[in-house]
Structures are given as C-alpha cells and as structure tokens.
C-alpha cells in the first residue's frame, strides 16, 4: 500500500501552534475556554493546544477527554476491536466555550456523536471544532472552525494521523486503499 507523508512532524507542530493562536484570537482570550479531545488522538492534540496556549498566553486552559463509543450511529461490525473508555471532562461545561478537538474530520458522524455526548454533560455557551486534518466528504452539515490542513482525498483513501503520544511519531499519512 503506497503511503504519502502529507504532514511532517514540523508541519504538525506549526499547525498546532497556529490553531492555538486562532482559538485564543477568535475567543478573545481564554476566559471560560475548555479543550475537549476526542479519543484517541484528539486527546493529545487538545493537550498540545493547551500547552501552546500556555506558552504564549500564560494561561492554563483545562483539557478533557471525550469518548464517543456510546453515541456512535455507525457501530463497527462484529469482531473488530471496539474500545470504550471513560470520558473525563475537567469541570462542569455548562456556560463554557468548548473547543472539540479531533485528528481527522471526514463524514462528520463522529462529531455528531461528540456533540450528543457533550450535551449530555451540560449546556455549553458555545461549541467549536478544531481538527488537524479536514479530508472532505461530509455526510452531515458540519464544518470545522479551526483546521490544520485541508487534504483533498477520494473516498477510498485512508488518512492516518500519527502522534508521538500514541504512535511514537508525528506525521500524517495518506494511502490509497486498493479496493
């Protein structure tokens, strides 16, 4: 399976720093801001965004982890690995400005599930979406507020985000699926 590196470690780092700035700018600071990473790779991304914001803003933005396994409408076929973990939100999200963080935005179904999950925890003032990669092919009327990189793909392609924390390396790969 041929694989192309679409983002290097440096690309990933720059994208995160840029998104961090955009988040603070758009929200006019860090007041009431919470970063909620979607498991699995959204969580380290959210943590990195928080770290980046602390570096230039000097403020600690709380980070949470959201597992959407219980909210999916596209449960995998039997026999595939299914993992659900506890969600872990740092505080009451009611009235807060929540930035959902995920690695790849594709059909939008995971985001839909995440919105359902989030709302079960309370009524945020606002929910925004940050993703490292937007690969198109939306099936729901959703868009990201912050995007690291737009990557045009065909449906058969596979986009793989790898991160130091989960995979030992920072990079984004695209491979063509043969079928």
């Amino acid at each position, binding site marked *: 399976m041929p694989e192309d590196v679409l983002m290097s470690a440096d690309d990933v780092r720059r994208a995160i720093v840029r998104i961090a700035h955009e988040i603070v700018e758009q929200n006019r600071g860090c007041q009431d801001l919470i970063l909620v990473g979607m*498991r*699995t790779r959204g*969580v*380290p991304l959210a*943590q990195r965004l928080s770290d980046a914001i602390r570096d230039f803003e000097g403020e600690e933005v*709380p*980070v*949470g*982890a959201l*597992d959407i*396994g*219980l*909210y999916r409408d596209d*449960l*995998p*076929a*039997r*026999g*595939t*690995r*299914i*993992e*659900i*973990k*506890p*969600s*872990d*939100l*740092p*505080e009451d999200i009611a009235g807060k400005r929540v930035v959902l963080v995920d690695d790849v935005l594709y059909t939008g179904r995971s985001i839909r599930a995440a919105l*359902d*999950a989030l709302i*079960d*925890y309370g009524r945020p003032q606002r929910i925004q979406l940050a993703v490292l990669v937007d690969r198109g092919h939306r099936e729901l009327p959703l868009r990201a507020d912050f995007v690291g990189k737009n990557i045009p793909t065909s449906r058969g392609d596979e986009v793989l985000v*790898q991160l130091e*924390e*989960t*995979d*030992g390396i920072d990079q984004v790969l695209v491979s063509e699926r043969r079928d």
Partner: protein
Amino acid sequence: MAKHRTATPPLTAKRSRAAAQTAPPAQVSAKEPARGDGWRRRHLLDLDDFSAAELELVMESTDAMKEVLAREVPRVPTLRGTTIVTLFYEASTRTRASFELAGKVLGADVINVSASGSSIEKGESLIDSVRTIQAIGADLLVLRHGASGAPYLAAREANMRIVNAGDGWHAHPTQALLDAYTIRSRLGDIRGLKIVIVGDISHSRVARSNLWALTTLGAEVVVCGPPTLLPAGLDGGGDANESDLPPVRVEHDLDRAIEGADVVMALRLQQERQQSGLLPSLREYSRLYQVNGERMARAKPSAIVLHPGPMNEGVEISAEVAGGTRSLIEEQVANGVAVRMAVLFLLLQGGKAK
C-alpha cells in the same frame, strides 16, 4: 502496529474515579493466548472459554460505564431501538434490577418476564418461551434458570443474544465479572493476587464462574470449604486434563487458606445444605468456615472481602467483617450495573441481532 492499549496521559482529572486509576497490561494469561482483539461473542454463557484479553476488554468497557453512571443524568442513547427481555425462572431482585437498569441507562427497552404469571406456569417449555420472546422482537435475552445449561439450550434454539444471569449450579458470569472488576478497581492487576473463595463451592455458580475468570487473569485461587461442599475433581486427579477445570488449590482449613490472602470471598450458605446432610450443623460450619475478624487478621493488611449476596450474617460471614472497612460488598452491587452495561454493549455492538 502501534495499537497497544496504553493509557491516555493523566488528565486534569477532577472527577477521577477508582476505575481509571489502574491500567493493567493487556496480555496476562499464561493459560491461553489472547485470540485477537475482536469481540466475536454473540452470547455470554460462562467465562470458561474467555481469554484474559477478553476479560480485560469487558473491564475496560466497564470503566466507561462507571463514568456514565456517575453523571447527573445517567443515560446514553447507545442501545436505542434495542429490546432486551429478562426471563427469570428464579427470583432475584438484585440481579434482575441490575440488568434492567443497565439496559435502560444504555437506552434499550427492557421487558421483564417472570416465570410466575406467564404461560411458563402453565408448563410451556423453555424452548417455547424463548421462541416466543424472540418472536416479539427481542434482541437479547437475559436468562436466569434453575437448571444448569438452560442458557446453552436457549442459545442453540434462538437467534437473539443470550446472557446467562445464573444457571443452576453452573455459572453466573456477570457476577464473576463484577467481582473481578471490583478486585481490580481496588487492588489493581489481578495477576499474582491470592484469592480465597470460602464455602459451598459445589452448589455455587458464582464460585464456578469466578474460578475461571480469576485463574485466567492470573490469580492464585484457593478454594476452602468442607469436603462435602467441594465438587468432584477440583483438587486434581481423576481423568481430567489440565485445562478441563480451573487450576485451583483446595484447602479445608480456613485459617491456613486465608494466610496472606489479598481477597477473601465468602459464599452464601443455603440452609438446605444442612437439611440434606452435607453439614452437621450451622454452628459447626460457622465455627470452621465463617469469615470473621480474627481470621481476616491473617490476611494481608490490604485484603478485601467480597460476598455475592444475599448474606447470612453470622453464618458464612461475621457482621463485623460484612460491615467493616475491608468489605467491598456494596461496591460489588454498584459495579454490577456497570459490568452488565458493558456486557450488553459488547454483545449488541454490532447492531440488532440478525
């Protein structure tokens, strides 16, 4: 592939739960290789053929369910549109309520069918009842039955998922899962723990399922009770192969068995065991086999006490121990709902049964 299940980095966890504290390594069983990551089971009948990886998967999923239960409004839409039927041929308020709540928290419709007040009383056979329940559109049947093997019969005859909620003396897999989960959440990795199960092993489905689960997870399991209440073959010998029965040690002296134990599980003693001549008297039983404070002093200082309930305080367990700080008996009940949620979720994850 880098798909190892490393724990996510610790978060600013205000709501930290015991559940999330431990992250046991994935593969633990020396007994059986993990058979892939996937969950392929249609039914939960017993734990005798579970790999350590599968048990871990259930317990990890239980962590997530505990989080749901801790919410202000513990309800998720996961199993919306799914119908779960509980069919209990034996009364059990606790287990049935636990399954019912588990299903409802996950958004399923739960229908309770009692053996009394239905056609079952008129002599309808188990197979007929199971088929009827399937015909009304149930996706999953939770079955409690006095005859060992009844859920296996149901699983052969039906297309829906079957969960064994206790069959005769044979198995009670969700109870064993919640016991293992409770131990794990308090003591961490189960491997290497010394776990003593005390009492009437012969007639205990809880004990049987626990023996499988705990030995598969690598615990050193000692069963202790009077010889009249220990089933044939458990202490080895005979014509069984090594893997035919769980590898446990049999001990008749509780003081010796409990020495250095991490976990002591007392089993319910049915009064009828005395009536059927298996015991001289309850007095002698409790003198020899009651889990009490004096005996618990021989266990590790960190040792915990479990009991599947309902308890006969003063018989198999002293009131002092049952209500004491080592007792996790209430936590067992609380974990029961979460474990059953995990089981329902895993069995129904592929959508509706076809």
